C-alpha cells in the first residue's frame, strides 16, 4: 500500500499515539483497567471513543476487560485492550480462550519492572510470556515491538489488520520508556496493510437466515481438540513464513552485530553511531516482530560475517537471548553470542554499551 503523506507532525506520548491509531484503524471497542505506565491510553480513549461514537468501558478488572474483548471480538467488532505486566498476567486465561476461538483482537502491554508488583519503570521482562503465548495451551500471538512514537502509531494500525487477516491476537509489546516518551510523529490517516481482509462470517450477529454460529473452545470426547491444535500450528507456521519485520543498521561488513529491540535499540543505535564514527564495524539488528522472530534474516547476516559475533542487549535476564541463540544455532558458536541484560526497571546506557563492545572486540 502506498503511504498517504497527508498527515501533519504532532507531539504525543507513545501511549496516546497507540490510542489515536486505534481510532483511525476503526477500533470499535476498547476495554481496560488503569495501571502505570499505560494509563494514558485509557485516559486518551475515554475521550476519543466517546467523541467518535465508539464503545469505551473502564472494566472492573483486567480479567473482565479481556473477557469483554472476547465478547466484542466474537460479535465481529474490532476490539482492543491495553495494560502493563501484572494486568497482562491476569488476562492470560482470556488470552488463551481468544486464541483457541481464533478471534482477532489487539492487546497492548507497556511492560514494567517485575516480578510481582515490581516497579513502574521500563522493562522487557515479559518477552517470554508474550512470544510463547503466555497462558495455558499451545498457542501464539503475533508480537510487534515499536521503538518510536511513529511506530507505536503505525504498528497499532497494522495490528488490527494482521489480527483480522490471521484471526489471531496481535500484541504490541511496548516498554515504559516508549509508552511514556513524547516525540513528534506523522499522524497520517489509516493505511491498511492489506487490500482485502476475510469476511467475518463467523461473527455472532443473530442467526437470521443461516445456521447458528457457535464460538466455543471446549472439545470433549472427540478428536476435535487435536484437529484444532493442528489447525493452529498450521496457521502459526504460515505466519512464520509470511511475517518477519526487522531493521538493520550498519550491518554491512560488521564484525559485531548488536541485537536489541524497543527502547534499548534506540540507546544501542546511539552507541553504534559513536563506534562507527571511530571506525569500529558494529551493526544493529532490531526485530520489529518478536513473534514470529526474524530468525532467518539473523542467520543470513551471520552467514555473511567472517567471524560472526553477536551481542544481545535487553532489559531482562536473557529472554530474547534464547531466540537469538536458536536462530544462530547452526552458524555461530554459542560462546560468540554475548549478552548484556538488566532488570528491575534499569535500562542500558551508551557508556555501558561502549564498554561491553570494548570487552568483546578488544
Amino acid at each position, binding site marked *: 500500500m502506498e503511504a498517504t503523506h497527508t498527515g501533519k507532525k504532532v507531539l504525543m506520548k507513545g501511549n496516546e499515539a497507540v490510542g489515536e491509531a486505534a481510532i483511525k484503524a476503526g477500533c470499535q471497542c476498547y476495554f481496560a483497567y488503569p495501571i502505570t505506565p499505560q494509563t494514558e491510553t485509557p485516559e486518551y480513549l475515554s475521550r476519543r471513543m466517546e467523541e467518535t461514537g465508539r*464503545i469505551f468501558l473502564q472494566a472492573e478488572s483486567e480479567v473482565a476487560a479481556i473477557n469483554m474483548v472476547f465478547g466484542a471480538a466474537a460479535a465481529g467488532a474490532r476490539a482492543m485492550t491495553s495494560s502493563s505486566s501484572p494486568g497482562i498476567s491476569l488476562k492470560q486465561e482470556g488470552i488463551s480462550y481468544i486464541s483457541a476461538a481464533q478471534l482477532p483482537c489487539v492487546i497492548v502491554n507497556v511492560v514494567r519492572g517485575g516480578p510481582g508488583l515490581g516497579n513502574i519503570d521500563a522493562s522487557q521482562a515479559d518477552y517470554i510470556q508474550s512470544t510463547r503465548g503466555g497462558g495455558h495451551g499451545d498457542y501464539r500471538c503475533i508480537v510487534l515491538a515499536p521503538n518510536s512514537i511513529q511506530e507505536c502509531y503505525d504498528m497499532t494500525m497494522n495490528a488490527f489488520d494482521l489480527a483480522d487477516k490471521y484471526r489471531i491476537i496481535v500484541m504490541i509489546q511496548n516498554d515504559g520508556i516508549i509508552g511514556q516518551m513524547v516525540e513528534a510523529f506523522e499522524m497520517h490517516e489509516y493505511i491498511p496493510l492489506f487490500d482485502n481482509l476475510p469476511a467475518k462470517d463467523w461473527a455472532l*450477529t443473530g442467526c437470521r437466515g443461516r445456521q447458528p454460529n457457535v464460538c466455543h473452545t471446549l472439545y470433549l470426547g472427540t478428536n476435535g481438540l487435536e484437529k484444532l491444535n493442528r489447525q493452529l500450528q498450521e496457521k502459526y507456521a504460515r505466519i512464520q513464513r509470511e511475517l518477519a519485520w526487522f531493521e538493520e543498521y550498519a550491518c554491512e561488513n560488521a564484525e559485531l552485530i548488536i541485537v536489541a529491540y524497543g527502547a534499548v535499540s534506540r540507546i544501542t543505535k546511539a552507541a553504534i553511531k559513536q563506534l562507527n564514527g571511530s571506525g569500529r564495524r558494529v551493526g544493529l539488528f532490531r526485530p520489529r516482530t518478536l513473534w514470529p522472530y526474524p530468525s532467518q534474516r539473523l542467520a543470513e547476516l551471520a552467514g555473511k560475517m567472517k567471524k560472526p559475533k553477536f551481542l544481545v542487549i535487553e532489559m531482562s535476564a536473557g529472554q530474547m537471548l534464547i531466540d537469538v541463540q536458536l536462530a544462530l544455532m547452526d552458524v555461530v558458536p554459542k560462546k560468540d553470542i554475548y549478552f548484556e541484560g538488566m532488570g528491575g526497571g534499569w535500562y542500558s546506557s551508551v557508556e555501558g554499551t561502549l564498554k561491553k563492545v570494548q570487552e568483546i572486540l578488544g
Partner: protein
Amino acid sequence: MTQTILKRQPSSITEGSTHYCGGCGHGITLRLIGEVVDELGVRENMILTSPVGCAVVMYDYLKCDSIECAHGRAPATGTAIKRVHPDKFVLIYQGDGDLAAIGTAEIIHAANRGENLTVIFVNNAVYGMTGGQMAPTTLIGQRTTTSPFGRTIKGMGRPIRICELLSNIEETKYIERVSVHNVRNIQKAKAAIKKAFNNQINGVGFSLVEILSMCPIGWRLSPQQSQKYIEEQMLHYFPLGVYRDVEY
C-alpha cells in the same frame, strides 16, 4: 397446561436428549427458556453466553448464536456483545459456582452498570460439573465432596444469597428467585424468565432470575428426594419471590 409443558418440544431446542442427569433442574430450565424463546420469537435475533459448568454445551441444545465463556466471566463477555449489538437479545446463563464464587466481580459490575441483560442464574447449591463440591450457596450442614463433615459457618461462611445482594444495587431492574422443584413453581419460573426476557427486549435494563435447581447426582439423592430437599431445606434459606421490580 401442565401436560403441554411436559410434551411439546420447543422448536428452538434441538431434537434428542441432553447430557443432563435425570432429575436435574438444568434440563427443565432449558426447556422453559426454549418455550420463552419460541413465544417471543427471538431465536434468530439472540446471542447466548453459556457458562463453564454443567450448562457449558447449552449451545448444542438451543439453536442460536452462542459463545462459551470463561468460568464466571459471562456478564463481562455478554456486556461487550450487547454493547456491540444493542438490538440483539443477549442471554446470560450461569451456575452458582460460576456467578457467586469465581464471577462475583463480573456480575456485580454488570448489574451496577445497569447493562440491559437477562441473567438466568441456576442455583443448585453445589459445583455440579466437577462432581458436587461445596459452592458459595451450599447450605449450612450440607455435605459435599469438599465439605465432607457438612458446611460450617465458621471457616466457610454462610451461603451467599445473590438476589438479596444484587437487589441492593440501584441499577438493577428486576430480580426474582424461583424454583423448578414442582409443577406450580415451574410455571412461576417460566413467567419470571419471560418477564426477564421482555425487560431486555423493552429496554428496561438488568434482570436476573435465580432458579433453585435439583442436582440429584451432586447431592447424592434420588430425583424425588432432591425435589423434597428444595422444598424442605433450600426454600428456608433461599426464600422465593420478587426482590426487585422497577416498573417503567
